[in-house]
């Protein structure tokens, strides 16, 4: 289990005691496209610092489910069910009010901004003052092993470096939950394991409930949380129930 051995640095504000006890809960969440269920409504609770994994064949609606959680679902897809974050319903909030961070397969760093500017873009405006903001960004760069890379154009970075910047940008926005939409799929195998460790360690350090979508079993294995498979259809063409296959008993939240 690659991910569990890492002991992440404790970021300030995440000291035991005042750690936000976030839980991401899905209740009866289902998606319909053109009158067809993509998968049968699923229930899921992801505890703070836990990384749950959602697996399924391509086209089964995994990414759409994450878009639904973010609030950016394609209007052509009809969604049902409730999303609770820390017990409060967030399904009706606009995307920007949900405070759910997401990482995609592509790092999606903005090419018109430098590395530091991309990070500054994630940093909330509540942190005022040029010096304070720059200091926070320098710290984030250092955390990502990228000290001195701030002025660089993202295009000059390697795939792994870009992926780390993307994660730092997401975390600087202080999300309350983290969604991972196959963020390791485009990295080569050696890099993939390191990046997984890096992402999972940070998610746990920040006590973020994390939902990973992948079809790489190694990702799921490394996540060490519950694993769900969705989108398997039974003989009548109906979506089979999402099934928590394994893992729940085996893995407690690692950072706990």
């Amino acid at each position, binding site marked *: 289990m690659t991910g569990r051995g890492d002991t992440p640095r404790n970021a300030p504000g995440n000291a035991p005691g005042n750690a936000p006890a976030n839980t991401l809960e899905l209740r009866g969440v289902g998606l319909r496209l053109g009158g067809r269920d993509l998968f049968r409504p699923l229930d899921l609770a992801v505890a703070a610092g836990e990384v749950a994994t959602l697996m399924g064949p391509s086209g089964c609606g995994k990414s759409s489910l994450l878009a639904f959680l973010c*609030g950016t679902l394609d209007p052509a897809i009809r969604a049902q069910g409730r999303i609770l974050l820390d017990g409060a319903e967030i399904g009706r909030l606009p995307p920007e009010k949900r405070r759910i961070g*997401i990482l995609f397969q592509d790092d999606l760093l903005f090419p018109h901004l430098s590395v530091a500017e991309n990070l500054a873009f*994630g*940093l909330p405006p509540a*942190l005022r003052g040029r010096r304070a903001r720059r200091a926070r960004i320098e710290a984030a760069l250092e955390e990502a092993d990228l000290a001195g890379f701030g002025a660089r154009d993202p295009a000059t970075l390697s795939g792994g470096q870009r992926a780390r910047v993307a994660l730092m940008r997401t975390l600087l*926005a202080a*999300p309350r939950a983290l969604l991972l939409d196959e963020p390791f799929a485009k990295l080569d195998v050696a890099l993939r394991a390191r990046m997984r460790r890096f992402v999972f360690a940070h998610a746990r350090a920040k006590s973020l409930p994390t939902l990973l979508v992948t079809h790489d079993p190694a990702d799921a294995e490394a996540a060490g949380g519950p694993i769900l498979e969705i989108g398997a259809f039974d003989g009548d063409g109906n979506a089979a129930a999402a099934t928590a296959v394994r893992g729940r008993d085996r893995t407690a939240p690692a950072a706990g």
Partner: protein
Amino acid sequence: MAGALRQLTARPGAAARGAAARRGGLLQFAPALALALFLAPVAAGLLGTALPAFDYLPALGGTAFGLAAWRALLAWPGLGDSLALTLTSGLPATILSFAIVVGFLAACHGTAPLRLVQRLLAPLLAVPHVALAIGFAFLIAPSGWILRLLSPWATGWQVPPDVALVQDPHGLALAAGLVVKETPFLLMMTLAALERGDARERLAVARSLGYGPVTAWLKTVLPAVYPQIRLPIYAVLAFSLSVVDMALILAPATPPPLAVLVFRWFGDPDLTLRFAAAAGAVLQLAVVIGCIAGWHGAERLVAALGRRWARAGGRGGPGIAARRLWGGLLLLLQATAGLSLLALALWSVTRRWRYPDALPSEWTLAAWWRQDDALLWAGSTTLTVGLAATLLALALVLACLENEQRNGLTAGSRALWLLYLPLLVPQVSFLFGVQVLTVRLGIEATWLAVVWTHLLFVLPYVFLALADPFRALDERYARSAFCLGASPDRVFWRVKMPMLLRPVLVAFAVGFAVSVAQYLPTVFAGGGRHPTLTTEAVALLGGADRRVIGVYAFLQALLPLAVFAVALTLPTRGAARRAGGRQR
């Protein structure tokens, strides 16, 4: 064409060379032919205008270079006012059009108002400038429809008020008319750029980081889209600063904007004025180049400020007020265009419409029936010139695109500048030279000369309408057809053309609409012998009554609209499905 142009400079790889040699045929000459037909007149036209500006025009006795033309131009008492008018109408029109497009898309990306606006876009684009300007004048003039609707109950006026709402001294009516006409064009180009990019993903990232929709769009999507709409913006800027036909209708006559002044001098019976006109045409070109350079400088400034703004991390609000404001503003613009057309239609069937009645009190079709052969003649010239220029442009563009694909060439961004050249260079700055060229070639004032001159403006638009769909066509269809033993020509006619039927028809409609709208090229190349609905409508403005003008202008608007309607409905359902599936 972009790639096609490139072929002239780039050496194709060995494989491509082999393929070209094997396939051979006329196709490989398409780029050169397009270039000759398309760019040569612009270059010759600029030269033919610039030489007289420095006193050289042997036909009129100017055989030595000098500065007399410039002295005559600068001595003109109204020159300063004309220049000022050009700037106060052209610059605000461009800035406002751009601001409205950006504000609207930032506020309404992915919302219901956008879909509504999108549906109305194609017909609005098809409306010619002249018809729109005349309808707009019928709408906002002191005796126009809006004041009739408001009088006397709201204004208390029983007679039209004595204020210059049209042809005002600062050219604001012209600026407003330009905004109504140019905003749909910029909007369409921006929407096309958005289709190509990754706006959806950028917005998703920004919003998951806590950004409100409007701020997210401005900070992450605009920087990606802007480089792609830079040339269209410059084209709008150049057009707004040098428009003649709309200015003849909406701008004051004394002093007129610079372009109108130059145009008048070119047509003056006093032939010595040709020299001052040529100098004015060069000055007009300088004004456009200067303004484009200034805009380019402003781009850098705004980009630097924008980065600072992005760094500060402000998230912005939910943007509901912005959505109402910009969505409302855009719908208002579209409503204005629609009402302008309606005003034309109303006047064409009016017998009696007393001020301040809201509608005519007596109706008649007499104005339509009363028109003699002139209307028929102008209508048929409009039709034949439009069809010929568009079919020619379509053939050239398809040949260039097909040539590009067969030889594996890719489009360069620099080549796109060449394509935009006739849209960036003010028409008055090179059409006189084109006229001189047609005299040299012995085709002056012929139908052919009119078609050719229209081609200069039709071709870029046909290319813009067709290039994206053509290049987006999944090349595996062609490849699998080759593997089934089909020749390249057979693949083109039996695979690509049927699949691209809809975009080809739309490009045809776009090209036809552009041709119908041409005023200056028709006047310069036709020498008054090939009047179209457009030139007749403008000519009638001097004296004829609104009913007759309404007939000409409404028919002018109706022709391209009808072609658009046919283009959009003609493909059978099967063809539509085939074509639509490939291009989202």
